[in-house]
């Protein structure tokens, strides 16, 4: 593969105010650099040297990121394969900035037009490495992205003149060290035929359960390599692999409430995936749980003490706390900025520390989905101490600075096609006040007695939820617990209930954490936000809160099926 590289230092010297580490990039480059890197670099240099608008505007920063993604997915229901897909693609994202580090085309617009710059979108690129094809796409779209950047900067300058002064005067782009790092490119490792047989066999268990109205076992694999070059000298080629098995089963209660339960396995290598016995057991357990829910009494509105299990608590922290730690939300004028002015103030109980550390590959034996070494702006990920002894220290940062945090801490993330924002990686909640889970239960009962409540709640599993951080509408959240028990103060056995939704406002929820257990566990999930769907992890011990509020879930009004399911084989 050929590539044309213009003299790098010369080209870059035309752009003011850059510290440039191309020399370092070349010194460190290794044999494992994919030929694509050379093509990207050559076109980047050419564009940086030659892109100039009629008014003299030039880009001060550019990067090309290519996401090469190989995915395969198999799903089975009742012994039959229902989905069987494979997808291979390479997509290009162009990040191009005009103006300078203090003010550029990504600045928020406060009136008229899209408030945030949308990025280049996801541009298909030749999978086979054909140089002519790739170079033409780079050229064609770079030109398009540059023109829209120039147009947007003009709008921003007008906007700044006619609107009131901005509260947060921080820069638009932080200066960061550039990195050179190469990992081998990855392709899918997936024994499709073998998995198809396994899924058929395991999914057929549901044939014995007429009350399970739908069920599915899905196995998905992802193998990705990200190629990134920037005008600051970044040369990154990073790879990631992950597998996920998802099990779901649904039914409907006699009163029309739809009930579902799910479970998933996550692994970073094929070797660490569960065997058939483990998957079967998990499926059986999901079926048993959803059928138990069908018989469970309805939740009543309740305010009182509760325990969130470790995994439930991890979801709770990710949704309600983690999203409010994302730095750009403190600057965005449409955001509620819950914690914007709380730096160095107490926001959690003294015994809690919270940090986000994408560089953790595993927690115990468990592979973490939120693992990465460099973020989508090429910044090295670091462990970020968000809260120390209950005191808010900083935020999760991309290269978009805010008042208290002028630098990135390697949390600028996106999926292909979106503009980068600050996101979570591996969020970890640690506690200095640990008791055993059995003791935590005792403390729950004591708290019930103190508050004169007949029972407390135990949230064993939470499927997910949403949180509203916008300034429009109330700052609130809702999470959907699936498995909730009443824990009685008088010692009766626990009682499973259904249809409870946790509601509340974020600031007050955190003040009510009383104790934690010594049982941290991992929740591996996919998180959707403005920069796309990303793999994340959250780790937390079980927590006891003095008050939690639940409301009755709105339920479907349609009846269970009129005819019995046709589960008999045709004679």
């Amino acid at each position, binding site marked *: 593969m050929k590539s044309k590289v213009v003299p790098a230092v010369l080209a870059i010297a035309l752009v003011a105010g850059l510290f440039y580490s191309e020399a370092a990039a070349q010194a460190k480059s290794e044999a494992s650099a994919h030929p694509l890197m050379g093509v990207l670099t050559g076109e980047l240099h050419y564009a940086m040297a030659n892109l100039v608008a009629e008014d003299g505007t030039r880009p001060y920063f550019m990067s090309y990121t290519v996401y090469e993604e190989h995915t395969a997915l198999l799903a089975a229901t*009742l012994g*039959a394969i229902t989905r069987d897909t494979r997808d291979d693609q390479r997509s290009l994202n162009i990040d191009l900035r005009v103006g300078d580090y203090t003010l550029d085309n990504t600045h928020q617009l406060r009136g008229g037009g899209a408030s945030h710059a949308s990025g280049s979108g996801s541009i298909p*690129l030749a*999978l*086979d490495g054909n*140089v002519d*094809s*790739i170079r033409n796409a780079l050229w*064609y779209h770079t030109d398009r992205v540059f023109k829209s950047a120039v147009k947007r900067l003009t709008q921003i300058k007008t906007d700044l003149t006619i609107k009131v002064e901005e509260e947060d005067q921080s820069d638009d782009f932080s200066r960061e060290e550039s990195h050179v790092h190469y990992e081998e490119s990855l392709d899918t490792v997936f024994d499709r035929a073998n998995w198809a047989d396994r899924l058929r066999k395991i999914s057929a268990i549901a044939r014995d359960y007429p009350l399970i109205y739908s069920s599915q076992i899905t196995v998905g694999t992802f193998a990705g390599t990200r190629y990134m070059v920037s005008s600051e000298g970044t040369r990154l080629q990073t790879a990631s692999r992950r597998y996920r098995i998802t099990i779901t089963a649904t039914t409907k209660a006699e009163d029309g409430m739809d009930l579902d339960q799910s479970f998933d396995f996550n692994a970073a290598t094929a070797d660490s995936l569960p065997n058939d016995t483990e998957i079967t057991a998990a499926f059986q357990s999901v079926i048993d749980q959803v059928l138990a829910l069908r018989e469970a009494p309805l939740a009543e509105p309740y305010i009182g003490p509760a325990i969130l299990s470790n995994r439930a608590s991890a979801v709770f922290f990710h949704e309600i706390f983690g999203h409010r730690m994302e730095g750009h939300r403190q600057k965005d004028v449409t955001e509620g900025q819950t914690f914007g002015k709380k730096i160095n103030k107490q926001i959690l109980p003294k015994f809690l520390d919270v940090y986000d550390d994408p560089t953790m590959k595993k927690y115990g034996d468990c592979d973490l989905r939120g693992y990465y070494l460099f973020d989508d702006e090429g910044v090295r990920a670091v462990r970020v101490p968000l809260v120390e002894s209950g005191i808010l220290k900083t935020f999760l940062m991309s290269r978009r600075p805010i008042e208290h945090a002028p630098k990135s801490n390697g949390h600028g993330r996106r999926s292909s096609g979106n503009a980068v924002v600050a996101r979570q990686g591996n969020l970890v909640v640690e506690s200095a006040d640990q008791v055993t889970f059995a003791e935590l239960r005792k403390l729950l009962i004591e708290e019930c007695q103190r508050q004169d409540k007949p029972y407390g709640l135990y949230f064993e599993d939470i499927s997910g939820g949403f949180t509203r951080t916008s300034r429009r509408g109330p700052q609130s959240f809702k999470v959907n617990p699936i498995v909730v028990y009443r824990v009685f103060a008088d010692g009766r056995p626990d009682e499973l209930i259904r249809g409870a939704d946790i509601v509340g406002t974020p600031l007050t929820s955190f003040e009510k954490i009383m104790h934690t257990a010594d049982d941290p566990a991992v929740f591996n999930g996919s998180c959707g936000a403005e920069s796309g769907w990303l793999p994340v992890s959250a780790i937390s011990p079980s927590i006891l809160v003095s008050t939690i509020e639940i409301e009755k879930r709105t339920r479907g009004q349609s009846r269970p099926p009129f*005819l019995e399911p046709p589960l008999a084989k045709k004679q």
Partner: protein
Amino acid sequence: MSFAYMTRLLVLAALVSAAAHAGPVATEPPADVLLEAMVDEMDRSMSRLSFEDLPRPYFMQYVAEDRWTHSISAALGGLLDSGDNRTRVLTTRVRVGSYELDNTNAPPAYGLRVPLPLDDDYVAIRHAIWRMTDADYKRAVETLTRKIAYLKSTNIEDRPDDFTPADPVSYFDSPAHLDFDSKEWEETVKKLSATFKKHPHIQDSVVRMLAGTSTNYLVNSEGTRILVSDTGVYLEIGAATQAPEGMHLSDSLRYIGERLDQLPSADKIMADIDEMCAKLDQLAKTPKLEQYTGPVLFEPIAAGMVFEALFAHAVCARPIPLGSGGGWGDMSLEKKLGLRVLPRSFHVYDDPGPEEYEGTVLVGAYKYDDEGIPATRVSIAEKGILKNLVAGRAPTKKITKTTGHGRTAGYGDAQATTGCLYISDTLAMSPDELRQELIQAARDEGLEYGLRIAAMQPGGYGDLGPPIYAYRVFVEDGREELVRGLEFLPVETRALKRILAAGSERKAYNSLAGVPHSIICPAILMEELDLKKNVEEFDKLPILKSPALRD
């Protein structure tokens, strides 16, 4: 625009509905697990689906589409994408009430759709059908209740019945098969896309290929059992460039066939690409026109697009959906039945039967429509007088019998749609005579030139698409000059009455917009149309030299 973003959905619909192939046909149902599961669950649902005093279904239809497609795309010799996809989708439609009044022709005007297991597993397939039938039945009961309440409070004059009974049909194709060597075709598509390397002025290009097979199952409670197999091949090549002042110009080539050997040779396609690029290059250098009012001559494919925009939709008998305020009725020619709508020498009929027209595969051909009715030939206009409309099983005020034209693009209920519309003129002229007619018409208007449209983009209901290649034909000496920058102002269907002349040579235009259909049409000369300047602002030309021009 970037062709690489072009959706492939549009094409998928076309493939599946492409002409029914002629294979061995059986009248006894084959041993087919999917068919058995559909029939068994329908039988059980029709006999037992009821609850307390809720109305029972009086009619049910299941359609299952089993498709396999492989898509390949490439640009400038590089492979962008290659992969196959297998889907099985079930659409249910449960009707409660009676033929006179049921839950259809009122929102929601669609059945429920659900993916089915891909394995031939009787239990798993039947289970999925059971769930959807239950949901569709409940929805049908709710809709009927709402509809009855609406009718009690609203006065609708001469409301037609909702549905007509039909005789059962049995038809079973043998399974479709397509020998497709994906590696070989990847190389071909790459090679075709590399042709653009010879044309550095083309800024963006893509070659996209789709090949696939489909088996459609249709089962209804009247006893109809249909299994239609089909194969399809589609190749699309798009190119875009800019004129010197920045105007975006694009063109595309499309090849449609049922079998791979119906595609032209790679050499022929590469020659077509060269020709397209040369024409685009020429177009970029031509003058822009500001405005034109006068006679317009449309070459056959462009004329097919004119009839698509102004005529094809208007000759479909579609009931006016409840609560719609009758908006659709304004478009329909139903009220003009028996009146003249075209020149006196024009004849129009629709016949979905023939699968080709002079070597061109017709995407609008089919044997049975999406309501299980055999397609029939319908005489629409004779001597310019509107005689009949194409119809499905939902009656309108004047049309109460289906002609086998109830079709759907996959979502939404079947509705009357043309299949293959044949347009002819008994006074047809040679191409040369037609040109002379254009010149004469321009001269009569005192114009310096007339306009000839050699190619244009497809339009929408009542809107003609923008011309791609328009020529002004000078009255003075008959010379032609390519022009650009014009688009049509809205035109009404009655403009077709003032077609001045038509050609003897006809060509088949295949449309993939919505339900695939074909229009076999001669060149037409229209008396007077208005065109205006299409854009006022242009993107600037690229700042950077393209890689091809750089080295």
